[in-house]
């Protein structure tokens, strides 16, 4: 039983990381209806830029600030070059445009900073906390706990931003109804830039946490793919859904790996289990746990 809980908690903590990636998706999807496949590439780009500046000798906080500036520039360019000309196109077209954007960002990131794997040290030890392992016998990494803490703070800040600030309210208005938002004088373009900047910020945080755990490398871009089942479980439009979905995916894939793998022929089912889970879930509840219900015949 203790082992079960250890796996479960490990999975949940890994799920926090998935949630962070999914959060970036949800932000953009809510405000502009764009399914941003490039979120994974943005995570990679942000982390690589951050490490790159550190290697050039910039202090920690300056490197973060400079990376944020890079993400802001990226947001402006994306809005101007990709989104604005594609206004009113079908969602699938925008989705494919973001696949193109993914390749572009990956190329630019590796061209400017090189392709080798970098280590990123945030100064948080990735080792079990003694107090917990002494008292309960479970080993839980300090790093995972700090990461979850950061995720919680991030979600809280975003919640305040969405609910209490003027820009946040405008964002929600755009998400509800583009035309009505335009009618009351909200500039769509400004909102899009804002939301891409926020998503870029989330990408930076995610990239730093993942990068510190697994090294800053190209594999970070595949995070985007793991975020897809998270979104399906949680619903495309819901911040809370992204968090809960991430936790479910993280926990279930670890549990499946440990308890289910021997029935289907061996390990490695982590690679596809979340997708199948999401698929089964789709058949029951296509809008996700917290998504908006669409009446949609297929």
């Amino acid at each position, binding site marked *: 039983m203790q082992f079960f809980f250890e796996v479960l908690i490990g999975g949940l903590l890994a799920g926090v990381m998935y949630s962070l990636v999914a959060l970036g998706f949800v932000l953009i999807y809510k405000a502009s209806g764009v*399914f941003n496949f490039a979120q994974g590439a943005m995570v990679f780009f942000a982390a690589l830029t951050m490490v790159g500046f550190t290697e050039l000798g910039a202090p920690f906080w300056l490197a973060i600030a400079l990376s944020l500036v890079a993400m802001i520039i990226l947001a402006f360019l994306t809005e101007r*070059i*990709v989104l604005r*000309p*594609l206004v009113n*196109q079908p*969602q*699938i*077209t925008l*989705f*494919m*445009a973001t*696949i*193109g*954007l*993914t*390749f*572009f*960002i*990956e*190329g*630019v990131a*590796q*061209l400017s900073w*090189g*392709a080798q794997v970098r280590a990123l040290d945030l100064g948080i030890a990735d080792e079990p906390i003694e107090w917990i392992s002494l008292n309960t016998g479970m080993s839980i990494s300090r790093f995972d706990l700090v990461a979850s803490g950061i995720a919680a703070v991030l979600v809280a800040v975003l919640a305040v931003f969405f609910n209490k600030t003027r820009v946040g309210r405008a964002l929600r208005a755009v998400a509800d109804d583009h035309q009505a938002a335009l009618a009351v004088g909200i500039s769509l373009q400004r909102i899009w830039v804002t939301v891409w900047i926020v998503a870029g910020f989330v990408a930076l945080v995610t990239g730093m946490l993942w990068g510190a755990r697994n090294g800053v490398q190209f594999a970070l871009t595949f995070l985007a*793919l793991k975020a*897809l*089942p998270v979104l*399906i479980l949680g619903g*495309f439009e819901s911040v809370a859904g992204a968090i809960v979905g991430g936790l479910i995916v993280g926990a279930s894939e670890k549990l499946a790996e440990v308890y289910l793998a021997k029935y289907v*022929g*061996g390990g*490695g*089912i982590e*690679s*596809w289990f979340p*997708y*199948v889970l*999401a*698929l089964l879930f*789709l*058949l029951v509840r*296509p809008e996700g746990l917290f998504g908006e219900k669409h009446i949609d*015949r*297929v």
Partner: protein
Amino acid sequence: MLPPLRRGSRPLAHRLDSRFRGNDGPYMLYREAGQFRTTYAEDQQLFPIRQDRIVAILFLLFAFLVVPIASVMPGLDRMIDFQYWYSGVLIPFLIFALAALGLNILTGYAGQLSLGTAAFMAVGAFAAYNLELRLPGIPMLASFILAGIIAALVGIVFGLPSLRIKGFYLAVATLAAQFFVVWALQKFGWFSNYSTSGVITSQKLVIFGYAFDTPMKRYLLVLAIVALMALAAKNMVRSSIGRAWMAVRDMDVAAAVVGIPIMKTKLLAFAISSFYCGVAGALYAFAYLGTVEPEGFNLDLSFRVLFMIIIGGMGSILGSFLGAAFIVLLPIFLDLSAGTIERGFGLALPSGLVSNLTLIIFGALIVFFLVVEPLGLARMWQIAKEKLRLWPFPH
């Protein structure tokens, strides 16, 4: 009694008219005036315009006769490296065109976005290998066809969710196919006859006792298969089934209302698309690489095929070929130009520059095409033809 009409006595307007009618004018190469279709058969032919017909026939003659003959001509092979052209350019181009054709049927015509093309190709490749391995004496072509059918069955299974979901959700379903198939092929040694990490080496390509052992022979085989399947696809998309696909793509509710069976249509699109991808995968293993592993059929390959149809043209048979040519040739072109720059300026480009530039150019092109011409190269070709029809007159 009226006098009989003599030549030269027609009114001026008639004479002028005959000037415009002919295709023989020096500057009116592409003109369909005067080509009347008087029977249904003529109206329904593949290339109703004579010039298109001629170009198509010339192109096929070139591909089937001129290229092979040129490659066996003594002397020419010193100027052009035909072996490289066959195995490095033409064969992959044709195979990718076939896969793109398959994806185009599903995504371009039936409107179901798929990110799992490579998985269906992998199914085809491994099915053909196992059929040859476990059923000794089975004809190669039969195993290719059966491999396509097996891929089609897998396609139907992963197409089932499309009955309930569409758009991004469906993309996730096909992603599940992508990861699951690659995982299964790696995990279960049976598929690869228990070789390490699932690598298979294809059997010798022998059809009816004739060994396709040189690049030229393999090229001709692939060309024949691709040409036949492209012809079949072209006819499919302009028959009732293709129209049903397009109706479902454009508005499924309306399609259902006019009596198109949605379930059958969608599953058929998945089956036929996967059949094409499966055959492409079998050729990929047998005629192109020879040795393949499950990891080779990764998501990147799926994306490459997707890019082919975006750049080439969604919902266009010609577009699949144009896109495949573009995606196959672009990295080669970039490599060559990088090499030229290195030699020309005597400087060493940093490693990885070209591959990263390729990524950037691919990405930029995707966005460019979606913004400027969402229907891709095929549409540009069509516009060019429209222009040529009027040229040199403005209207």
